[in-house]
């Protein structure tokens, strides 16, 4: 059973034609997304700037309530 399943994947990948191009494209895309975009352009704002959940909660609460005091209400 395991052997059959292994060969399904192994032979399937080996005999791909158009699939090879598509897999290359998927891998390039994932590389751009995770290695470039996520790392350099999309850091998680709260995870990067605060080290604990309590700090993050405090910061968001500050945002939710500071807006009110900014507008002198």
């Amino acid at each position, binding site marked *: 059973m395991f052997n*059959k399943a292994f*060969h*399904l*994947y192994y*032979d*399937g*990948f080996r*005999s*791909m*034609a*158009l*699939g090879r*191009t*598509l*897999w290359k*494209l*998927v891998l390039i*895309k*994932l590389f*751009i*997304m995770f290695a470039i*975009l*996520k790392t350099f*352009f*999309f*850091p*998680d*704002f*709260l*995870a990067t700037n605060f080290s604990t*959940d309590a700090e*993050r*909660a405090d910061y*968001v*609460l*500050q*945002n*939710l*309530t500071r*807006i*009110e*005091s*900014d*507008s002198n*209400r």
Partner: protein
Amino acid sequence: MIEQIDLSLVNWARATFALTAMYHWIFVPLTLGLSFLCAFFESIYVRTGNEEWKKLTKFWMTLFGINFAIGVATGIILEFEFGTNWSNYSWMVGDIFGAPLAIEGIFAFFIEATFFAVMFFGWDRVTKKMHLFSTWMVAVGSNLSALWILVANGWMQSPIGMKFNPDTARFEMQDLWSVISSRVAISHFTHATSSGFLLASLFVVAVSCWFLLKNRHSLFAKRSIAVACVFGLLSSLFVAFTGDEHAFITARTQPMKLAAMEALWEGKEPTGLIAVGLVNPDKKPGDEQDPFEFSIEIPGMLTLLAHRRFEGVVPGINDLTFGNEKLQIEGVAEKIRRGRVAVASLGDYKAARKSGDAVAAERSLKIFNQNQDYLGYGYLDSVEQAVPSVPITFYAFRTMVSLGTLFILMFLVFLYLSAKNKLEDYPLILKFGVLSVFLGYVASQAGWVVTEVGRQPWAIQGMLPVTVARSNLDSGTVAVTFFLFLFLFTALLIAEIKIMAKQISLGPEGGKS
């Protein structure tokens, strides 16, 4: 307050999200619908044993694979954006979205790792029935996978089954089942997935019409058109049915959106539906300007849509903005007042907790709990800010509905000509068939414009406006990411079109997948 917020930041973040979501929605509906069409084609092959149907199935399956490969993971970028551009929002909804998105991830992984492999690699390795089962599982699984993200979106349009925790600043799940089974979520899911079926049917018709115009693979094209038109007709009727349900629910959960969809400023009984109209773009809440430059109205239809009977008022934008005692509608001004009380008491609660004053904290919490349903309104500066863009919502709605109606007629004509075996006698109709897939994309995107522009200014309906949901970033940084995505997604789209066009031109006889 709104003046103190960098509006260009909010708008760049909105534009980036809209761009990403719209590109993502180019790939998704085709995956949703084409997976089922492949299952239908293969079912016919298994039932008839005719190898031509196998060839036909393999051809469409290859196009499905191309679209899937190019589109896969484009949705992950939306999640990146939540964490970076919309961090307040992301933090607040983490508990609600965590469960549906985790289920989606696990679901997608198992389906893709198992049934996809059998579908693409298993033609000569498993039995016909096992292969067919895998193809059906891919179709069902792909669509169920979409359920979870649409549940999350439905929750944003009508937040239920949760409670706001003032200590953690998070909406916490109280009842997962009510989130999943909410009428808004179900209606979103059925309407969005069936529109995907419709679009994929148009895609199959378009490619097949191209073959017929080129006088290539005629039998293959006619068979494909016959199946796609039956599926497309049923889907487009179901889209209309779920759209009606959607409008009925919107009348209850987001009446401002419905009013904007119809550019309805004053409610009346019965309320008519604007069949064709040119809205006055300068009209503002409370002013005396005419709402339309020109319009043709179907009397009573909007009342029927909203109430499912010919009696009853559909509130207009002015009724909802300024309140209407007769209709027992609370105006936005009162909601803003209570929202500000909620925001102030949340601040007082936080301060009292910090200073260890338990009595003051309890008092503030009590006030907050009494007003928390209005929290989002506390961040609005004026009643006008509660009104979405009327022209965009109005025109997008009309684009979607008119094209949807056109597709029903189109499928009927194609089915008739298909049954009479006269498709090739009408090259103009075939050319329209090729064009129809682009119109399908316009209709599909317009639907999302209605859904998302129509709910502005809310990230979470009534609870959190987009101006508060955003992160404190430099707008230049967000603008850069907008253009990065524009470049990346356009490149992906070009890649998809090139690979797809090459594969189509090879036809059902061509190339190994």
